[in-house]
């Protein structure tokens, strides 16, 4: 298990876009199960939407991407070398089954399908207490941080 403080050692994202609160399970180079608690107090609910709050689907993808980046970094003993980061290259598929609402906890399970030293293909399933909310396949590659 990784705590929020440990997660920050592996990920560069910070408020309001750090989308992983805790890691429940991690197996190097194979899979990770992460948790993101969604509060009605999140800043993006100000605009999405003013009259009814739904977590934007792109942020579900972001939570998956960060979980995958965590797994990639954890498996290599630390974040990518200075000047590099694991970039989301392709969303091969992502199906949204039901919305994520304030009060939900997203359980993000990411499984490696294939990987090389410079990238990975992963399958992801996101669930809440209501059931599956999204599933898909994403492709990542190591990229240089913009100058």
């Amino acid at each position, binding site marked *: 298990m990784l705590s929020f403080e440990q997660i920050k050692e592996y990920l560069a994202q910070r408020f309001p876009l750090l989308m992983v609160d805790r890691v429940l399970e991690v197996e190097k180079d194979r899979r990770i199960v992460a948790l993101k608690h969604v509060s009605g107090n999140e800043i993006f609910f100000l605009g999405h939407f003013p009259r009814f709050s739904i977590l934007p689907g792109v942020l579900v993808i972001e939570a998956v991407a960060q979980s995958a980046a965590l797994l990639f970094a954890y498996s290599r003993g630390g974040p990518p070398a200075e000047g590099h980061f694991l970039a989301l*290259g*392709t969303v*091969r598929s992502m199906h949204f089954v039901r919305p994520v609402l304030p009060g939900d906890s997203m359980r993000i399970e990411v499984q490696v*399908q*294939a*990987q*090389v030293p*410079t*990238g*990975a*293909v992963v399958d992801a399933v996101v669930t809440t207490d209501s059931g599956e909310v999204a599933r898909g396949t994403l*492709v*990542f*590659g190591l990229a240089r941080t913009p100058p």
Partner: protein
Amino acid sequence: MDDLEGEIRQLIAEIVEMEPENLSPEADFIKDLGLDSLRALEVLAALERRYRIQIPQERLLELTSLRRVVQVTREVLAQAQGAA
């Protein structure tokens, strides 16, 4: 064209977003089809998933065309069956 080549042609065509019949066996993924490293990785993942094999990393550079992919997949499948 045998079943394996037909299946792999279909699988690669989906990833490179081409009609399968337009995918020439000899077309070089990078020079002719403009495949980038992430798409190449997707081809690898699709092969490994479809045939439940593990293609050794040292063979990745050989996956340069449909013909070469079929050949490498056939060899890895034969090795896996021989080891079983």
